[in-house]
């Protein structure tokens, strides 16, 4: 009860009730609840039509300069990140495809194995979704194969969005929640926020890692 209400109750006769704050709280809850419901609809929108095939990023091979010595990777950026990272559906599809296309074979649920881990904060070829999509599409030296022409472009972006969620870069309400099977680490939506990005000491010392 608000202080204004308490004063009025004290001022008036005993047993008098103040109802107005209750009503306004109820109305506020209803409005906030509705707003949350509407926001939740946006989170799950599922576009099924495939984007048009003619796509600039698919036509030209994206080269990423491989610097010897210190100096971070070039961060690529485009307007497409939002469609994939701001949709729980796209990130969840990326999670399914991560297993389907056997990314697990080398990156083992993001923990790394034959390939580098994806859940830490070291990124040899850049941490933006564009960089990661380029790594999947074109492949990287020392083992990462190219999936150009094999995985459709929108699925590459879904996978890239999921890889970002492995490092905690995707908003918590968009990242996938816990697995059906046992997992040694917290679900993607329970990861701590990533630390500020550091440039790797020497990009050539590591293996090809998106």
């Amino acid at each position, binding site marked *: 009860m608000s202080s204004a209400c308490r004063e009025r109750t004290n001022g008036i006769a005993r047993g008098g009730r103040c109802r107005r704050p209750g009503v306004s709280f109820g109305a506020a809850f209803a409005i906030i609840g509705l707003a949350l419901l509407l926001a939740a609809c946006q989170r799950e929108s599922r576009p*099924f*039509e*495939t984007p048009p095939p003619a796509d600039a990023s698919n036509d030209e091979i994206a080269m990423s300069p491989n610097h010897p010595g210190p100096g971070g990777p070039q961060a690529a950026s485009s307007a497409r990140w939002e469609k994939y990272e701001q949709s729980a559906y796209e990130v969840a599809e990326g999670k399914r495809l991560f297993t*389907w296309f056997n990314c697990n074979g080398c990156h083992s649920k993001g923990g790394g194995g034959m390939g580098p881990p994806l859940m830490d904060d070291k990124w040899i070829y850049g941490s933006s979704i564009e960089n990661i999509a380029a790594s999947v599409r074109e492949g990287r030296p020392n083992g990462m194969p190219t999936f150009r*022409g094999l*995985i*459709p472009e929108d699925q590459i972006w879904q996978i890239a969005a999921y890889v970002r969620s492995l490092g905690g870069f995707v908003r918590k309400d968009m990242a996938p929640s816990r697995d059906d099977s046992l997992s040694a680490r917290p679900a993607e939506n329970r990861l701590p926020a990533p630390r500020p990005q550091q440039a790797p000491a020497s990009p050539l010392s590591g293996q090809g890692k998106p």
Partner: protein
Amino acid sequence: MKPSRSLRFVCTAPVLLVAGCSEWQSALHPYGENARTTLSLILSFAIICTIVWILVMLALAGALLRRRSNAEGLRPPLETDPRRERGFTRMVGSAVAATVLILVGLTIASFFAGKSNAALTGKEMLTVRVTGHQWWWEVRYQDASPSHTIISANEIHVPVGEPVKIELDSGDVIHSFWVPSLAGKRDLIPGRPSEITLLVDKPGVYRGQCAEFCGYQHAHMAITVVAQRPDAFDAWRKAQLADAVPPAGAQQRRGQQVFLSTGCVLCHTIRGTPAGGTSGPDLTHVASRQGLAADTLPMTRGALGAWIADPQSVKPGAKMPRVDLGPDDLNAVVAYVGSLK
């Protein structure tokens, strides 16, 4: 007097509904031992419940229409007549006794139907493992020797007159295996394998359907059961064991090249080629099946072209993405996949 329009509608609608039930997917047309037991159970429940309903409605109508006698109107409302009260007690008591008897009788009938359905278990000669996926069925004929295991999809072939064990499991969410003409439903629960026995007594094609809502394309998740005479079944099994036929002609060879160098190869297996993906259905003998995409489309060249060109317009939400192929490549792939008898 001419019958009114609404009366005519009321008369024709049930006739149309009954005509809509074709025999190949109908629990009212049983072609197997289990389905016959289930049908007799359905009929006994329906008949008994109809009789009970009619009796209750008659009693209700009698109570509503009964005229009050004058003597009754004059009596004070709380006064009781011991003779009438005894009659009422007898009526209510006998109705309760009849209800209990009917419920116990139906329970016993249901128990014996379940028992007779379970009696086939353990006598099977053949085991088929069916795994549900969103939204198709993976079919695997188990054999002691791994080289004799057949992997197929969306179509089960069974020999007539032999009990066949269907082992059920799911790869993602809960599905339910239901071929109404052959047996009742059985759920496919991830991580909890279950089984059901089919015994078909007449050669033919029977349609089944996923009976547990499993996502966007649940309605397009059908399975076909082809019952054959044992010799025809053995011939089919031998044909399925063979590797895929090599491409004949330039167009089919190009189709195979395109298949192996684009997205198709990531998810599909064609035995006898390097294609070994297991996320999608095995396509080694895809053209020998009757339907496409879990019986969404018939297996024709046109339907195959439409499906490969843009699966999302045929079955929105299906896990098969569109692979961007030029018109010539698309024709070549359709020719090649269509040749995989």
